[in-house]
């Protein structure tokens, strides 16, 4: 006979945020606040060439003239941009030859997060460019990638080693004047990843970066640039967790993708930043600008994302379908719990002929959260014979959460077809009971049903990410059924 006769309560499941620990490492801070001197300080710290400093300063000047956008559904107290640090780096500054030279505390942090670099190197065959705070601490598999001419390095490194490529493409998808947060990022971005795939090359491995916000009060301004030259292919994975923190953390990343003729970029994200506690205290503000440019004919860009974290998510990974016959995809799972607010979606801008786009969005809301899909499909007059298919499904787990779908559709020619389907449903008692009657506890049952609901998107993720994402969905929804 079992002793576990007492009914399980929510408390038995609720772990404190699993990754809420902080590594004690001295950070090298820029003084608090934002002004021209800070922009210069950051640029100087990174030994940047003058053209990049000028580029940053121009962005900063533009930013001063801009206002924070307020059209989305997210609500938050005003952000004091002068009360934040804009640069922090782990103190160790010497060049790192191998992972053995990496601060053991950093490695320990990665291990806690389940990212054993060493093991990944040998077992998983994934090249990891780990961003700890703002500076890359270890890059692996470089030699293998070099054989094929693939460049995968930190952004700072690229600025120094491949200035022509950076200069040619930086800001060409998301101009410095694009929007408040992207412009801020352009002025103060710290580091990020740079990828270049030469013509005709299929990148021999999945590229992956783990982001982690650490030093207290540090905004994160990552900058990523991925260029797929003619007829090349790359799959890029991005995954994030953050330690627990009481004060809000601003995160405004920029990701630019460029796909030239016949090239394909697959960009996958699993995002699990600290969402705040059960009362809505703390959590990351995530204002991200991600955009891909299908610049060449027959090119393809695909965004796949699983978003479970952040107090506020404001994020619309988009595709500009400039090349004829180019295609864009957006597959998204957004989970909101407690007091999280999600306003996320995509933009598909059809400019070339015979362009196609596909949007599958799955929103899961629980607790007191709000979860909005906001998407634009715009078909321009020259984009003859274009088509879009959009499907937005929302699943609600409690009575106090909300879900909404806000589609914007513009079609300026008569040859194109735009389809939009949307559903919203509440998780059914009958389904829960059926699963429980087969021996699954309530948490497992919810997890199973939610994973089924998200299947169309999960199967778009690379294998190793799909498993992680499924785990993340279960963890995010623990104790969530009311």
């Amino acid at each position, binding site marked *: 006979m079992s002793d576990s006769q007492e009914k399980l309560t929510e408390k038995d499941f609720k772990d404190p945020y699993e990754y809420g620990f902080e590594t004690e490492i001295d950070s090298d801070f820029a003084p608090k606040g934002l002004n021209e001197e800070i922009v210069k300080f950051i640029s100087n710290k990174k030994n940047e060439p003058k053209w990049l400093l000028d580029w940053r300063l121009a962005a900063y000047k533009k930013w001063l003239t801009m206002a924070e956008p307020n059209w989305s559904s997210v609500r938050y107290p005003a952000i004091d941009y002068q009360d934040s640090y804009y640069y922090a780096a782990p103190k160790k500054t010497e060049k790192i030859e191998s992972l053995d030279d990496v601060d053991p505390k950093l490695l320990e942090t990665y291990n806690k997060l389940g990212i054993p670099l060493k093991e990944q190197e040998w077992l998983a065959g994934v090249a990891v460019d780990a961003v700890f705070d703002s500076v890359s601490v270890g890059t692996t598999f470089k030699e293998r990638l070099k054989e094929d001419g693939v460049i995968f390095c930190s952004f700072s490194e690229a600025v120094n080693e491949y200035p022509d490529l950076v200069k040619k493409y930086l800001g060409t998808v998301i101009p410095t004047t694009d929007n408040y947060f992207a412009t801020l990022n352009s002025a103060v971005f710290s580091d990020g990843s740079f990828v270049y795939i030469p013509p005709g090359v299929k990148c021999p491995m999945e590229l992956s970066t783990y982001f982690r916000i650490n030093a207290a009060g540090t905004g994160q301004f990552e900058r990523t640039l991925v260029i797929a030259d003619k007829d090349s292919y790359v799959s890029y994975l991005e995954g994030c967790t953050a330690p627990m923190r009481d004060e809000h953390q601003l995160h405004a990343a920029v990701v630019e993708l460029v796909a030239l003729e016949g090239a394909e970029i697959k960009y996958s994200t699993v995002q699990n930043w600290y969402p705040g506690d059960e009362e809505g205290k703390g959590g990351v503000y995530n204002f991200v600008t991600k955009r891909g440019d299908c610049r060449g004919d027959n090119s393809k860009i695909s965004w796949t994302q699983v978003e479970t974290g952040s107090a506020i998510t404001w994020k619309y990974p988009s595709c500009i379908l400039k090349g004829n016959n180019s295609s864009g995809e957006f597959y998204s799972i957004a989970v909101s719990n407690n007091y999280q607010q999600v306003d996320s979606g995509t933009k598909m801008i059809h400019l070339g002929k015979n362009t196609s786009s596909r949007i599958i969005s799955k929103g899961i809301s629980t607790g007191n959260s709000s979860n909005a899909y906001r998407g634009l499909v715009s078909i321009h007059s020259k984009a003859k014979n274009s088509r879009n298919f959009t499907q937005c499904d929302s699943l609600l787990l409690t009575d106090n959460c909300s879900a909404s779908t806000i589609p914007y559709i513009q079609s300026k020619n008569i040859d194109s077809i735009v389809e939009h389907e949307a559903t919203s449903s509440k998780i059914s008692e009958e389904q829960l009971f059926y699963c*429980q009657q087969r021996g699954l506890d309530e948490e497992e049952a919810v997890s199973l049903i939610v994973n089924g609901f998200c299947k169309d998107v999960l199967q778009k993720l690379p294998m190793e990410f799909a498993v992680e994402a499924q785990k993340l969905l279960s963890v995010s929804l623990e104790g969530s059924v009311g």
Partner: protein
Amino acid sequence: MKEFLNIKNLSVSVDEKSIINNLNLKINKGEIHAIMGPNGSGKSTLSNVLAGKNGYNITSGDILFCEENLLDFSPDERANKGIFLAFQYPVEIPGVTNINFIKTALESNREFQGLDPLKPGDFLKLIKEKAELLGIPEDRLKRQLNVGFSGGEKKRNEALQLMMLNPSLAILDETDSGLDVDAFKVVADAINSTRSKDNSMLIITHYQRLLERIQPDIVHVFVNGSITESGGPELANEIEKNGYERFSNG
């Protein structure tokens, strides 16, 4: 011998309406009991209450299962302790493959019993064997759970789960409905093959035809929420011939 299932003076209501009235029923290990009754007599309520579904108000009585108070346990605990309900209307769960669902359920059961999960090869062998016995094609195992299944396919799938989980108490809620003649035989015979001295069954049905293939030890007539008469298989024959009228007045 340890007592298996003992329902004592059970009364159940839904929304203030009394559905089960002072029901008493004892099932011993290895016994097969059949409950027959007209529509709306509370048969399905009994199976839901045994399985622990929400929405039923137990106004009096007890249910002892292996000498434990069953009402103290959640539906999943009851399932893991060996109670299996073959649903009258199995639900669809989109995106979850049939085979994964059954594997998850089996692992959950085994974990509860302190057993390691079956090796993937052994699991596959087992499920293929059972599916074949029930005439379930392999591709249906890969389909989403009950999604787009016909009524008969759903019932066969319930039988498959029953055979995979091998419960100590199987409750069959109108498992014969929705099956055509041939499917009915296949399913009934497959279920009958699970019969053993350790497994008990509670068969809820309108018709005697299922009881011809799964011969019960005891037949109960269930009218207005309680058992009005119990007897051997011959009772089923009588109901088949004369209906429930004689029992309704008692």
